[in-house]
């Protein structure tokens, strides 16, 4: 006897809107994350945008509407342009060298040698250090006369009076070196994982065809690492843009704002000068910058990546 298909209406759930009934569970499970996202990310962003339109500082205890006045103040402030420049330079000079170094190191330690774990640990451990600890260690190393870095440099004939962190030209490079040292190991782990997940048949084909090491790297390995590079590039740039902890410990943004970044300047405006209108304006500009970078990466560069 042929099995009759069940009548379509017999098993319909009893809720009024069937679609809602099916999706209530998943949305309810998403709700905590959405609540946190809205409360701690979206709402503060909107609030900052609103506050940036008001004069809110020590001289104006009752906030007064100011239109784009706070933004005008910032654009006229020479220190603002300096910190924007510093921030972009920091982001570029910490992200790309870190990634390049990470890739080189990953290729180096990506072998089955018994002691490879030693190399990997040694390169990775700086990433585990809290930012403040790393900054304190390097602050000591950069101390004039007896700091380790200073003494190392005296072997190259430089005087031991070099005050790296107190010099307007060398303070930023000094912090960049510390940042790259701290991040490269972390990024290396990503590349290692990616390298070990690469399909072997493509490599074998390359060897059969007689490709040199460099051709193999350039034509096969690097493109296949595209997704990792994209992710690390965005991660590196964003974390470079947010550099603040080491600055607070090592140079306090000085000398003469040579190492001040947008975030550090924002902190000074918000919690030093208590000028919340201008600080909010700075926040808004930072948010726009981050969104632009994110869009550029995942909207445009993403298309060029091999998956």
């Amino acid at each position, binding site marked *: 006897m042929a099995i009759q298909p069940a009548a379509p209406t017999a098993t319909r759930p009893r809720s009024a809107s069937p679609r809602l009934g099916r999706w*209530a*569970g998943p949305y*309810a*499970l998403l*709700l*905590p994350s959405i*609540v*946190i996202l809205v*409360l701690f990310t979206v709402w503060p962003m909107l609030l900052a945008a609103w506050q940036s339109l008001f004069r809110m*500082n*020590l*001289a*104006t*205890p009752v906030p007064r509407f100011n239109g784009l006045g706070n933004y005008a103040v910032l654009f006229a402030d020479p*220190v603002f342009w300096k910190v924007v420049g510093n921030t972009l330079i920091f982001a570029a000079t910490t992200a790309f060298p870190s990634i390049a170094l990470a890739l080189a190191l990953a290729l180096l330690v990506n072998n089955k040698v018994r002691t490879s774990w030693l190399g990997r640990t040694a390169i990775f451990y700086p990433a585990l250090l809290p930012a403040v600890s790393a900054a304190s260690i390097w602050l000591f190393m950069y*101390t*004039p*006369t*007896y700091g380790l870095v200073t003494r190392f440099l*005296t072997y190259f*004939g*430089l*005087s*031991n*009076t070099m*005050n790296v*962190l*107190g*010099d*307007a030209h060398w303070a930023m490079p000094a912090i960049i070196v510390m940042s790259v040292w701290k991040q490269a190991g972390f990024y290396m782990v990503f590349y290692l994982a990616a390298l070990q997940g690469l399909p072997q048949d493509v490599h074998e084909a390359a060897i059969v065809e007689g490709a040199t090491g460099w051709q193999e790297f350039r034509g096969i390995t690097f493109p296949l690492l595209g997704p990792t590079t994209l992710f690390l590039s965005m991660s590196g740039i964003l974390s470079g843009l947010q550099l603040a902890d080491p600055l607070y410990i090592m140079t306090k943004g*000085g*000398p*003469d*704002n040579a190492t001040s970044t947008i975030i550090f300047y924002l902190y*000074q405006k918000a*919690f*030093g*000068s*208590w*000028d919340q209108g201008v600080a909010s304006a700075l926040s808004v500009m930072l948010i726009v910058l981050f969104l632009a970078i994110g869009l550029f990466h995942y909207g445009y560069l993403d298309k060029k990546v091999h998956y």
Partner: protein
Amino acid sequence: MKRTASLLLAILVIVSLLTACSKKPDPQPATTQPTETKPAAPVELQFFYPVGVTGPLAQIIGNMVDEFNKAHPAIKVTATYAGGYGDTLTKTITSIKGGTPPDLAVLGASELYTLLDMDAVLALDDLIAKDGGQKFLDDFYPGLLKSGKSGGKLYSLPFQRSTQLLYYNKDAFKEVGLNPEQAPKTWTELSDAAKKLTKKDGANVVRWGVEIPTNSFIFQGFALQNGAQIFTEDGKKVFYDRPDNVEALQFWADLAKAGVQPPGAIGSSNATTDFLAGKAAMLYTSTGSLGSVRDKATFNWGVAFMPAKKQFGTPTGGANVYVIKSIPKERQQTAWTFVKWLLEPERVAKWSIETGYIATRKSAYDVQAMKDYTAKLPQALVARDQLQYASAEMTVHNGAAVTALLDEAIQAVVTGKKTSADALKEVQTRANQALADWNK
């Protein structure tokens, strides 16, 4: 069934989230129950304090607070170390704005206008009138008391106050043929002595003649030594680009050019460490580090007035005790009990002995422990004796921004990026803008 379970789980998560996010109830002062026999819980006071000099001051404060709590079982003070002066101010104001203010705080004496602009601190006149009165106030050094006054009211009492001091290594002086009992008294004598004291080994420097930290507090000293105060008493104007100030900053920068001072921007804790390590023969820093130098120096050392140009001069630095305005009235009275205890002559003397800060009350110098101490260590009296030449530290509206501009100029000149005249002129314009709102 699976759907119901996941729904229930989701609701559970949301409810626990909302509970976690809800505001905690404010700690209530304990109310005594007349019918019960168990003692009332002590009133808990929150006390924020900074440490602005090199030394184990956090430990000393901890000991004092323990002593107070033992002697006053009905009150429990919790002292929270909050970093430097800037950090402590940030933490205090953030707590006030967040609705959980501390009851009292030790904050920079120069922060008065910032605190008044935020209406954060309580006028102490009523509390003093009921408990001590004019006799109490007269015992404080008038110069130190002045920094807490505004608009005829008193908002803070001096707690850890300092002047700058010239610390010098007597052994190094003897080594180069200088009289170890005779510290340089003028700017010229300072740079001459520094030249003699600098020891080199090829391109490396083994010992600097002098080491001067790069900050606006030190600059105020130089400015006062060369003539006059750099701000008006009402806190509305600053005078960075006066010719005397330009000259003062130039003299300071020239010391590094002459090779007797380390180049670049120098932190004050680095400078103190270098002095203690024998890498700098003279040091410009606060008397608040006296205790630390006394304990750590392995050589004979002395202190002296800051070298003069037209006159002796130094700003008075340090911090006062403030009571926060927004706490309930009963707690204000309890907080006052702690303030009064903290400022008793024996306590003031003890604090001065252990740290090096000036004892802010005249009667503290008559306490036996203090008399014995100063007999053994006459260096401890130098800062107090310099008070007659001391003036207030820069106290202006929008203090953080205006001071940051001065720091910027000093750093630019000391690192050789700008000349003294250009740097000070540029920040004068921006400082005028920063103060414009109060000069309307």
